[in-house]
């Protein structure tokens, strides 16, 4: 055999061998290890005490009872009252508007969404739209899209509308428990300076945000842990002297309708349990200290001497807690595909970009989305409606489900539906959807 033949053959054999040695190639994950989800435990230290049975005075008997006077509750009360139903609204603080006003979360987000031609269009009308309009007329609202409002003006406007519509208002009052008769809520125990009382009612709307009422009524729900913050406002922003030697730009938040006053959002600690009162109290305490210290730091920075802490929110900024397990769970997919529902009660817009099917959809291009009546309906209780951030949607939609604009829309829908159910003496579950939509449109709502 010639030398070169030998080399050639060696090469060929080598090639063959490599081929033979070749093993199947596919990269697999190394041992998969997934951490389980942590289930929160509220400590009661294992001890309990039995409350003695007692007689509770009945404060009133009404048609519609709304617990929670935030954006959803206020809109619901006005809507229900406008349909002619006698309406009671129970609010734990001294103002209407909840986190929007007292919580100082001033932007009315997602007033606009993109239509099918990708044009931005206002979608929040009806009672929420009316509130927004009145604030504009007062000159207490800046930006056309997702306006930032003045909290005191918003409290005033809501008060005005509640008074005009004849809602019976109970401030400084908690909805303490439900009075159940099978699957029907006969009324709600309330707790206040007057002690424990009961309000009997035909329909209850849960606008507590945390879903306290549907929790007590025995509905199923999802509990979400989220960041909790505390918003504050700074004054004298217009007196910051940028030309002062040693001036450094400090973070002083965003403008409000009042010149010289800024609102400062706080993201706060992550994954907080909003249903644990000890935790909430701790956060409240910590945040107050941190905000004060931070404002002092700003005041010590050259040019910022006159800046002062105007106020901290009277309500801690709980973003999410309970989410109802309702008749229909609204999905992100629904919100991205112009899904239309027969029982639409309103539309909401968008304010953040999302990743949808692996691609970015900027907030300006995100569709407006319909909210069906069914997602306000609990599965078990006969005469309960849920509005506000705890209505039934999937977690992927949380950024759009939890904000003021959506609360106003769901509140309006729930209020009108409750009023109609009382008027027609029917259950909220088999309400005439056509009539509901007709009345909503008469009340100025936009249904797509």
């Amino acid at each position, binding site marked *: 055999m*010639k030398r*070169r*033949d030998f*080399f*050639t053959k060696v*090469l*060929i054999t*080598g*090639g063959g061998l*490599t*081929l033979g*040695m*070749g*093993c*199947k*190639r*596919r*990269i*697999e*994950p*190394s041992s*998969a290890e997934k951490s389980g989800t942590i289930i929160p435990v509220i400590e009661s230290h294992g001890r309990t005490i039995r409350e003695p049975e007692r007689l509770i005075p009945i404060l009133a008997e009404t048609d519609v009872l709304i617990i929670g006077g935030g954006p959803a509750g206020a809109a619901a009360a006005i809507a229900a009252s406008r349909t002619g139903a006698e309406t009671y609204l129970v609010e734990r603080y001294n103002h209407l508007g909840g986190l929007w006003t007292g919580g100082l979360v001033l932007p009315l987000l997602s007033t606009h969404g993109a239509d099918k031609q990708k044009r931005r269009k206002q979608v929040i009308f009806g009672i929420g739209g009316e509130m927004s309009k009145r604030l504009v007329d007062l000159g207490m609202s800046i930006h056309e899209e997702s306006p930032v409002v003045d909290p005191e003006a918003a409290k005033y406007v809501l008060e005005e509308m509640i008074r005009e519509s004849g809602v019976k208002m109970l401030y400084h009052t908690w909805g303490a428990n439900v009075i159940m008769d099978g699957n029907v809520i006969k009324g709600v125990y309330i707790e206040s300076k007057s002690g424990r009382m009961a309000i009997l009612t035909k329909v209850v709307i849960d606008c507590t945000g945390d879903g306290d009422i549907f929790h007590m009524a025995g509905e199923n729900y999802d509990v979400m842990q989220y*960041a909790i913050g505390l918003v504050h406002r700074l004054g004298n922003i217009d007196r910051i002297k940028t030309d002062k030697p040693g001036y450094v730009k400090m*973070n002083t*938040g*965003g403008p409000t309708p009042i010149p010289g006053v800024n609102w*400062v*959002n*706080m*993201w*706060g*600690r*992550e994954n907080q349990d909003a249903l644990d009162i000890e935790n909430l109290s701790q956060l409240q305490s*910590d*945040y107050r200290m*941190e*905000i004060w*210290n*931070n404002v002092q*730091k700003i005041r010590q920075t050259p040019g910022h001497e006159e800046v002062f802490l105007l106020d901290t929110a009277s309500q801690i900024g709980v973003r999410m807690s309970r989410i109802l397990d309702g008749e229909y769970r609204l999905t992100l997919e629904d919100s991205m595909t112009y899904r239309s529902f027969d029982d639409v009660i309103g539309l909401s817009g968008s304010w*953040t*970009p*999302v*990743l949808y*099917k*692996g*691609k*970015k959809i*900027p*907030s300006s291009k995100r569709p407006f989305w319909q909210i069906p009546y069914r997602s306000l309906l609990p599965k078990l209780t006969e005469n309960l409606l849920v509005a506000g951030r705890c209505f039934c949607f999937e977690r992927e939609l949380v*950024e759009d489900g939890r904000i003021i604009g959506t609360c106003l829309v769901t509140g309006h829908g729930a209020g009108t539906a409750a009023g109609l159910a009382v008027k027609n003496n029917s259950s909220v579950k088999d309400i005439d959807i056509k009539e509901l939509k007709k009345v909503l449109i008469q009340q100025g709502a936009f249904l797509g």
Partner: protein
Amino acid sequence: MKNIVRILNLRTLSFMVAVILALPLSLKGWTGIYLWLSPFIMLNSVFALKSLVFLNSLGLIILLFVLFRKRWFCNNLCPVGWSCDKVSGLSRKTYSYRQVPDFGKWLAITSLVASLVGIPLFVIFDPLAIFNGFFTIFSGGFTPVKILFYDFFPGLLLMHLFLPGIWCKKICPLGGLQLAVDDVRSGVRKLTVRDEPGRSVPDSGRRYFVMAGAGLLAGFMVPRILRSEGETIIRPPASAGPDLFNLLCCRCGSCSRTCPTNIIKPVTDTAYPLAWMTPQLIFVDGYCLESCNLCSTVCPTGAISLFSVEAKAELFIGKAEIELKNCLLLNNKECIKCKESCKFEAIDFVASGNILNTVPVINFKRCVGCGACAVVCPQDCILITPPVADLKILS
């Protein structure tokens, strides 16, 4: 009827199928499946990576066919062969090119031997790669580099107008490989059947010896000369290292056509001529989906190695870097987009000093650089940079 039957012979049909599979029609795993038929790509890939995937069996089957029927692939399946023949038909001249050496055979053998020792040399001359690569024309904008590469297939056809049959007969490495296989067959036959008169003598051992020697030399030397260090290209997951990738990748464009979020784009940066037209990830409006391994399933050369979807948490494409200055969170605005979009739980919100200074922080042990956060960030303050491992080569 007769006409239709005549038109629809295997080769024409094959051409049509090849075109359909090469078009950007989101055919998922079927995209560019034709490339797997090429035994040249298959052998280069298997030799270089010393491992196999299931689809390599297609190439093996073709190799078997070729072993029994001379140039079976060229005559029955090759879409480039079909189109070259059509163009050659327009020209009245015919040449046999007896004087021209078999460049194809040289390309094939040199490339294969070189890939045995590490680096395949001429995969990009595979006709199926040229054919498929041409169809990348339908995705993305134009740059001089892109046009240069797109011209390959039309240029081939143009060449055939003047020199009919030249590519298929003399230059094509896939054709050359088939000729070499035929030589092997004759060689084997010569060993078993002695003195068969009338058969043409196959290429002498000497020529193969020189080809193999050139391949060996090239295989050893080329990686030393063409160092791709400092390349800051973000490759698809499970890609080979930069030196190997640039030569193993056949520029067929299948990965960029199959990518469901359209983030795989050809490199056209003149700073990296070696990497021209190889895939890179551009995170503009899409990210590398956590539930997708399509690019790895279509890559015929294994430059993007096959991986399972579950392995994605360990395949580091790059790493996310946040420019905090514009971050909404640091400016006390409401935003959770990066954290929410991270499927690998690699982003935490951490208070730095004061709770009002909460900022997103990336856990590099978990961040694979999929780009979800970078894409969704409303302030565009997240950037995906090449993984740390690549930077180590520099130091």
